[in-house]
């Protein structure tokens, strides 16, 4: 059923773009060649398979997606390689260094050199490792990270590989398989450091998965769809990015995403000062590179979801002025990529600025702060939403109106949701969290300090008693 649906959707999109003959005039520039490849290729395939036009199953569901997948994989993996370069450069600039400079101008060929080196490196498998699992683990990790790329709306119209109507669920479900790779890697390495790292990562990712899931529900209440492009369309229809409606949701999502991708300050599984390298301590060469790839792809994916859910996806004010569909599609990809890049810069910036949490503090943060905040956010958003419904539907103020078949906030409604999001939700959630964590050992430093002073006073009192017992 599902496949049918999106299949027909795709066909209609394709047909409309093929009918639009503008791109044919630009065949000889780069853009034209690319568009030709992407739009005409399925048509060629269709003719080649000599099948009737309406029933092109192979072309529609196998060949054309394969081309797209290869394209996306190629681009994303190149980007991943250059993210490593970017990370090194950003960290260098933050740390008063220069970063890679020797391979190519400004070290731009460094990723290629690194990749080559990793390919040529000896592939070491520890003697007592569980070999099969040891080899499968990085693959699981990287595959689960890459599969998610299929449903991410990279841009308008054709730029999504699969626009399925449960896109977000799919993302959450598949990306949580990644933890399996880490656990298996840690277990099969037969090293204590790896094992500790794996245990940490499994606990961490499972916990932050919950916070992440709760944080996006607020935004979904406004979007009322799980389809990734649907969410972007909803933001267009509502006229505002959901980050303004859902500041807490966005914050919780970002924190959880940091935890989910094992980035600093939550990089406990691979905390180099404690566990050497955590779950991938025993890995080398390209297997290790696969983990690295998974980590950076994970960063792209989580950022892409954040962009889709909270930052309006590929939309940008003024983007609708572009009438040429092809240009529009490419510009939208560019906007989406730029937004992702901003978030990834944030990731890097955080990593090179802040210290690392301790394991138990991390779990505290997840369970005592992120999950309650996410829950409270859902409740409060629900209340604001119900209050703002049209009066005909039982709302109090009627800040929303029916437009077509969906409810859209009016201008006052937008102001109302933004105001409640910032001015009411944040203080209420802060109070909730403060009351939950009032007696928290790790976060209430004041109480902790007082306790120490008290203990110290007791000790000193004991010490001031006539000495003698301490002598043997």
């Amino acid at each position, binding site marked *: 059923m599902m496949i049918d649906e999106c299949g027909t959707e795709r066909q209609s999109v394709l047909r409309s773009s093929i009918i639009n003959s503008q791109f044919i005039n630009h065949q000889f520039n780069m853009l034209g060649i690319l568009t030709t490849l992407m739009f005409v290729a399925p048509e060629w395939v269709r003719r080649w398979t000599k099948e009737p036009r309406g029933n092109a199953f192979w072309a529609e569901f196998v060949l054309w997606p394969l081309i797209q997948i290869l394209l996306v994989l190629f681009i994303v993996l190149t980007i991943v390689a250059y993210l490593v370069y970017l990370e090194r450069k950003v960290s260098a600039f933050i740390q008063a260094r220069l970063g890679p400079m020797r391979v190519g101008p400004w070290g731009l060929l460094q990723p290629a050199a690194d990749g080559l080196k990793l390919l040529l490196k000896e592939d070491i498998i520890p003697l007592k490792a569980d070999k099969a699992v040891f080899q499968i683990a990085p693959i699981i990790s990287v595959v689960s990270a890459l599969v998610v790329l299929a449903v991410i709306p990279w841009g308008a119209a054709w730029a999504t590989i699969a626009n399925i109507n449960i896109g977000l669920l799919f993302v959450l479900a598949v990306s949580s398989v990644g933890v399996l790779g880490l656990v298996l890697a840690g277990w099969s390495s037969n090293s204590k450091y790896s094992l500790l790292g794996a245990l940490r990562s499994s606990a961490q990712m499972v916990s932050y998965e919950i916070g992440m899931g709760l944080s996006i529900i607020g935004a979904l209440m406004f979007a009322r769809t799980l389809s990734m492009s649907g969410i972007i369309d909803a933001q267009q229809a509502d006229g505002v990015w959901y980050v303004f409606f859902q500041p807490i949701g966005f914050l919780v999502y970002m924190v959880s995403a940091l935890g989910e991708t094992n980035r600093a300050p939550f990089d406990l599984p691979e905390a180099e000062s404690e566990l050497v390298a955590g779950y991938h301590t025993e890995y080398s060469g390209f297997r290790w590179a696969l983990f690295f790839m998974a980590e950076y792809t994970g960063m792209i994916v989580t950022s892409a979801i954040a962009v889709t859910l909270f930052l309006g996806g590929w939309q940008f004010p003024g983007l609708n002025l572009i009438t040429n569909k092809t240009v529009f599609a490419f510009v939208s990809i560019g906007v989406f990529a730029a937004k992702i890049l901003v978030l990834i810069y944030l990731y890097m910036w955080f990593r090179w600025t802040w210290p690392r949490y301790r394991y138990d503090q991390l779990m505290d943060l997840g369970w005592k702060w992120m999950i309650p905040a996410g829950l409270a956010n859902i409740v409060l958003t629900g209340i604001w939403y119900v209050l703002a419904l049209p009066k005909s539907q039982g709302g109090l103020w009627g800040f929303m109106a029916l437009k077509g078949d969906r409810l859209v906030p009016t201008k006052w409604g937008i102001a109302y949701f933004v105001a409640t999001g910032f001015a009411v939700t944040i203080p209420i959630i802060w109070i909730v969290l403060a009351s939950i964590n009032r007696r928290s050992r790790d976060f209430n430093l004041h109480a902790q300090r007082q306790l120490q002073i008290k203990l110290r006073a007791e000790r000193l009192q004991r010490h001031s008693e006539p000495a*003698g017992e*301490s*002598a*043997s």
Partner: protein
Amino acid sequence: MSDEEKVTPPDPSGDQPQQSETSGEKSPQSAKTEASADKPAPPRAAPSDKPSPPKAAPAKKPSITSEIAGDPFIDKIKETFGLAITEAVQTLGQQILRVNRDRYLELCGFLHDNETARFDMCTDLTASHWPERSGQEFEVVLLLYSTPNNRRIRIKAPLADGEACPSVSGIWAGANWMERETFDMFGIKFDGHPDLRRILLPEDWPGHPLRKEYPIEYRDNEWTDKHIEYREVDYDTSLIDVKYGERK
């Protein structure tokens, strides 16, 4: 060309300390040998005297050690411990008490607990080896500090070879590792130490290196034979590429 070409081959490093020792103690002699030009002087001894001022003969300097007098606290200790305190001297203003091994622990407890003194910190614990003192070959040296009074005192407990010393790690927890190190370096056993193992050297290392009879050149022994694998290495002489050239 002179007939008596005599290249003085440089001595292996192990010889050197002995040589300069002689230069220190028997400098008149070595000066004499240098004067006779025919016989080649001992290679190391001769030059070391050259730069030194003409009155190289070591004039006995006045001793820097003297008896402690007029210190009420030391007097009190002497009174309490009587003949167990065999010596109470000061060197350069630093007080040293020499105590018999039997009452060493008692003295330490006294110093730690005494209300006026309160030597609450064990700054250092070490030993020294005097092989020529028969019956008192070892000397455990304990440096104490009193934080309330800002005062130091040094306790010495002479021991015979093989004799165990009472452990003070029950009084000062900080003495734990120092005693372990002393055991490691001198082989002095500490009675009542909770965990007397070697600390710096491997568990099965032969000998205790800071004893005077332990040679300084002692590279290959049973331990290295057992634990370090030797391999013959074929040198690739093509790698030896030393260039001579103009200094830049």
